[in-house]
């Protein structure tokens, strides 16, 4: 068989130059996504494009604050993505809660629940800042330090413990079945 490790630099170059984004606006930062994708900033120059299907996506942009209800969806979407996958947290809110530091419904430290590769500070970060963050993540992919997906696999117990502490055990099943009685009702 072929030793695929030989091709690893080529693969890393391709991964770096072809980051597909999950189309999931998790917060107010979603408003800066269209400008990034259109003519003034045009991220497609770097081969990035939003993709509606998480199965095909590589980069998960957490655009802004994360509420527990969204975090459940984020975790599920993150786990749908095939490895290697990267997470870029956008704005101060996923870092420490930002302006919502005392809100009962905003996650304070996102990296307790899913691994974050690059975080951009600011509220709201300018498109240039986001592009800078993306450049950083490209560098990290090239030299192999963007290893959030590995960390998630290795420390899954810890992440799962934190998730279960926040949502309660069995939240996935509960979430999947929540609306069935209401849909059955006439």
């Amino acid at each position: 068989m072929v030793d695929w490790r030989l091709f690893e630099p080529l693969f890393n170059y391709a991964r770096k130059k072809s980051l597909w984004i999950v189309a999931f606006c998790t917060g107010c930062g979603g408003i800066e996504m269209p400008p990034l994708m259109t003519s003034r900033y045009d991220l497609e120059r770097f081969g990035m494009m939003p993709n509606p299907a998480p199965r095909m996506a590589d980069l998960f942009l957490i655009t802004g604050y994360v509420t527990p209800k969204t975090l459940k969806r984020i975790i599920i979407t993150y786990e749908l993505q095939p490895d290697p996958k990267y997470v870029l947290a956008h704005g101060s809110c996923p870092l420490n809660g930002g302006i919502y530091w005392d809100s009962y419904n905003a996650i304070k430290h996102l990296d307790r629940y899913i691994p974050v590769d690059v975080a951009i500070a600011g509220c709201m970060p300018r498109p240039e800042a986001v592009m800078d963050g993306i450049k950083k993540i490209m560098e990290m992919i090239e030299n192999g330090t963007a290893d959030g997906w590995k960390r998630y696999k290795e420390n899954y117990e810890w992440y799962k413990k934190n998730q279960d502490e926040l949502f309660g055990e069995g939240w996935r099943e509960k979430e999947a079945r929540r609306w069935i009685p209401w849909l059955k009702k006439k």
Partner: protein
Amino acid sequence: MAKEEVIVQKVLEKAPYAEGKVKRERRIEFKVPADRIREFLMIMKENNFESMMQITVVDWLKDGEFELVYQLWSYTYAVHAFVKTRIPRDLDKARMPTVKDIYPVAETYERDAHDFYGVYFEGNEKMEMPWILDDAEQGLFPHRKDFDWLGYTKRKYKILDRFDEDKDNYVI
């Protein structure tokens, strides 16, 4: 006489149990006892207050009462009406009849008031349906004034106590 005064007079003739006054141009206010609210809103709807804008709950902790403000807007007169009523704020006593058959949109506002304040609207079958709050906060009614907001947040997210600072002296 200004149109606002005419409207207030017209409504008060039909509903003598209410108090009404003109707050300012295009704003009028009524105070209604809680048990007559359905009756009164029906009168308001007949008097061309077509739309309900929101139901605001104000938690007057000192008085031990909730103030429910039904905010109506009339496209005919271009007048905004506050219909205020007071109910006790204890969980078992904070009950109101629903007004969703008069203003259908009230169903949504009532769900909102129930989720955040614990006011139960009898007759609204969507009261128990999941609304904005997640499971963890169900039944805590976090917007009440006596809810330990900061303590709950710290416990939930395990954040450090360095946030305990004097919040009375903000400087912009």
